[in-house]
């Protein structure tokens, strides 16, 4: 019987790192080059030599802070780019974990910027394996107020969670309705952690940083447990609740985190094929949601959450529609600027579709950034020496959108940093679409919009 080595499969990325020597021209795939007519590629930065160039990406929103944060993945670093000239991003800062050669893990995964008072910060999540130094390190917090002057960027804190080695895979910085800036983080346990970032950056005792935990209520049936992969936190102005939308092993769950110390479960989304729930993003009013599950061939699913949000049901098990770029592939992350959904779609690069009719998603634009051979992403087994031969998990990893002008940034595991614009999308405000002005973008100065806006009518 095949035996598996119980180390995170993501670490097998290293195989591809070796398989592709620096400088090797990657074979082209299925003719997926460039993009559709409405899409304009503004810039492309390779960012790192070697095969694996980036994990997730974060984009600041203020007009006078044109900064992009590129998570370095197995390069164990974070790079900050000044993109005031969107045609020529300029790297202004780079930071690497100390003694990188002695570390083992997938490294710099997810980044979130936040603001407290008049200071700006950036939280870089890290994942190092047990047995590696910093296996308990979840995130490194930088004071980036002084950008673009790199000498003014300082590490101000490190969040560690030794009870669950392996760090933070995904994080979310949220301006809570009570005024606090909270940091949600996944760990290798069946819960998400909630930190008060003001305590973290102010030098308060570490014992005061962690203020809550959100359990994963959807146990992975085969093994009786499992953690979160990703989440979204947003305010529901209709119910005046801060809500946590979690994608965890076993399914999706929605929680009331108005009191983050005491989360209350509201409802779940579970059904066949939901076990490896990966990403979960609602519409600004919480009526709909887009979810991703991490299987090849799986489309993004669109859900009507109203029955769950209203309390009529405790579990939703039937989507209303689905979207995919290519049925052979898999999407990864996405950002919702209703009705548009911006997808970092692995081999299919940047994909944009809209949910003007939620039951009939329509693709609006695309740009192929992977430039890779189909099913040659990371994966494999010890039997084949961890050679990546059949995985579609390669290519576009993270995406972000700048609300004030519609700039789109994308990080691609194989090709690096990309900047785009799409015709007809010059910025986003939920009010323009009859929605609350709520997205993953936080108003750190004023907090979430609390005014109820008309809900999009549905059948």
């Amino acid at each position, binding site marked *: 019987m095949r035996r*598996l*080595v*119980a*180390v*995170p*499969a993501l*670490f*097998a*990325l*290293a*195989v*591809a*790192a*070796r398989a592709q*020597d*620096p400088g090797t021209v990657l074979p082209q795939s299925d003719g997926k080059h460039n993009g559709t007519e409405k899409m304009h590629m503004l810039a492309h930065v390779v960012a*790192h*030599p*070697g*095969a*694996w160039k980036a994990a997730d990406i974060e984009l600041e929103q203020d007009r006078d802070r044109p900064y992009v944060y590129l998570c370095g993945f*197995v*390069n*164990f*670093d974070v790079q900050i780019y000044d993109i005031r000239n969107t045609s020529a991003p300029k790297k202004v800062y780079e930071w*690497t974990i100390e*003694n*990188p*050669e*002695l*570390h*083992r893990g997938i490294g710099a995964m997810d980044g979130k910027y936040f603001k407290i008072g008049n200071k700006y910060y950036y939280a870089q999540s890290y994942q190092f*394996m*047990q*047995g*590696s*130094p910093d*296996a308990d390190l979840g995130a490194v917090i930088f004071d980036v107020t002084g950008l673009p002057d790199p000498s003014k960027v300082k590490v101000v804190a490190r969040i560690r969670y030794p009870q*669950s*080695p*392996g760090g933070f*895979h995904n994080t979310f910085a949220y301006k809570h309705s009570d005024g606090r800036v909270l940091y949600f983080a996944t760990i*290798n*346990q*069946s819960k998400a952690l909630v930190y008060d970032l003001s305590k973290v950056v102010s030098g308060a005792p570490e014992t005061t940083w962690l203020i809550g935990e959100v359990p994963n209520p959807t146990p*992975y049936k085969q*093994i009786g*447990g*499992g*953690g979160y*992969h990703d989440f979204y936190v947003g305010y529901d102005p209709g119910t005046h609740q801060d809500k946590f939308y979690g994608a965890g*092993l076993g399914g999706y769950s929605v929680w009331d985190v108005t009191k983050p110390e005491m989360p209350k479960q509201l409802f779940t989304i579970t059904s066949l094929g939901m076990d*490896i*729930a*990966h990403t979960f993003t609602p519409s600004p009013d919480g009526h709909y949601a887009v979810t991703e599950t*991490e*299987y090849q061939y799986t489309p993004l699913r669109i859900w009507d959450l109203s029955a769950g949000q209203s309390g009529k049901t405790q579990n939703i098990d039937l989507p209303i529609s689905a979207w995919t770029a290519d049925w052979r592939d898999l999407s990864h992350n996405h950002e919702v600027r209703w009705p548009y959904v911006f997808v970092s779609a692995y081999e299919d690069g940047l994909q944009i579709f809209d949910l003007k009719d939620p039951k009939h998603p329509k693709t609006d634009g695309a740009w192929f950034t992977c430039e890779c051979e189909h099913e040659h992403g990371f994966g494999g087994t*010890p039997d084949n*020496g*961890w050679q990546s031969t059949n995985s579609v998990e390669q290519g576009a990893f993270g995406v972000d959108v700048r609300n004030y002008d519609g700039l789109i940034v994308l990080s691609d595991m194989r090709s690096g940093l990309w900047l785009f614009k799409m015709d007809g999308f010059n910025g986003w405000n939920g009010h323009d679409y009859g929605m609350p002005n709520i997205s993953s973008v936080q108003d750190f100065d004023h907090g979430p919009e609390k005014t109820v806006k008309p809900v999009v009518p549905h059948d």
Partner: protein
Amino acid sequence: MNHSAWIGRGLLVAFVVAAGGPFDIPLFNTPKAPDAKGQARLVFAPSPFGIAVTADGRASYDIQIEASALPAPSSLGAYSAYVAWAVTTDLKTWNQLGTVTNGHNVVGHAELNKFLLVITAESSATPKVHVGPTVLHGTSPSGWLQSFLSHPLFRGIPP
């Protein structure tokens, strides 16, 4: 700094190692010694019981190190020797094991449950602290012990 190459190699070989014996430690080079190669093997320190452990049960190992293509230490700076260390995984404690040259070396004892095996260039064969650059490094087989919740099965990746 270009980390990709050695990080990638390191992680790759780590997985190969994971499928190897319980006493083997492949060693990875660093940009300071990009051609250096190494392989280490743990053997129980001499003991009348056949298994050497401390009074509290930690295994006590001598380490056999096969190294090749190490450049002259002086080529890296004001260094005269390569020294092997057993390092706690938090990098706080560096236990000096002995000197390493190209060829077969036996150094010991490592008495840590999990440790990194690090070979650095130093200005002395018996330095008080490590100050020089790392040329080769590896992880004890026990260093691969992971929380089961970090297994792909529990992280959304089917086996």
